[in-house]
């Protein structure tokens, strides 16, 4: 029973991760300039990677319940990977945005925005 719950939850999570990856990619293609595209790129490494890692963690927990004792290490590593993503990805995004501003790229504004 618990196997089924873990398996289903894990696949829901992996599909959600793929969904956010896909939407992030569509966003990078659809949005108009470098700054707005960074918002879409941010989705892939926060929720995209996040849900994929959560899905893998659930798979690992299932393995541990089946006596794979060494999989504890995998679980710990998955948590650490996500923590490192949380610490490093905003810095990369920030650096890209700053590079754009330093290079004189004007942020795109909607043509309908009179007061921008």
């Amino acid at each position, binding site marked *: 029973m618990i196997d089924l719950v873990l398996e289903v939850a894990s696949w829901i999570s992996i599909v959600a991760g793929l*969904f*956010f990856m896909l*939407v*992030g990619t*569509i*966003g990078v293609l*659809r*949005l108009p*300039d470098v*700054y*707005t595209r*960074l*918002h*879409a790129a*941010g*989705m892939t490494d*926060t*929720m995209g990677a*996040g849900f994929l890692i959560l899905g893998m963690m659930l798979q690992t927990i299932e393995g541990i319940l089946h006596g794979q004792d*060494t999989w504890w*290490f995998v679980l*710990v*590593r998955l948590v*650490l990977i996500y923590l490192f993503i*949380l*610490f490093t*990805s*905003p*810095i990369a*995004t*920030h650096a890209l*945005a*700053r590079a754009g*501003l330093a290079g004189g790229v004007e*942020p*795109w*504004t*909607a043509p*309908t*925005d009179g007061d*921008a």
Partner: protein
Amino acid sequence: MLRAFGLGVTLFAFWLALSGHYTPMLLGFGVGSCALVVYLSHRMGVIDEEGVPLHTTLRMLAYLPWLLKEILVANIVVAKVILSPDMQISPRMVSFRGSQRSDLGRAIYANSITLTPGTITTGVSGNDFEIHALRAADLETGEEQAMDVRCSRVEGN
């Protein structure tokens, strides 16, 4: 001194979690490399409130679940925007005032803003945060204020 010890213990716990080999020789190498890192950090002068912010650990752990929830909510908002056929976006550069008292707190706040899709910190000078927002309307929900308060709380005294 206490901070250097804390750094050593944290590094060794990290080493234990990643290694998986617990023979006396390898454990010795682990202890040795952790001691070397602590020594080098000491020489570089980075063992201080900012380099080893162990005093914030518990408050940081309390903050993370809230941050993850915010990230999830913001992701769904941005996903909706991207998938809508007419893509209603109104990008703006806006300025925010943070209430943090240390560079560490400001870094936590700036990174939290960037982590939530829809807002990116493009610059920090003093307590002024320059933010690029995907939709100006989303900024008026008070989420940034809530985040500011929580980041100041993580920073402690």
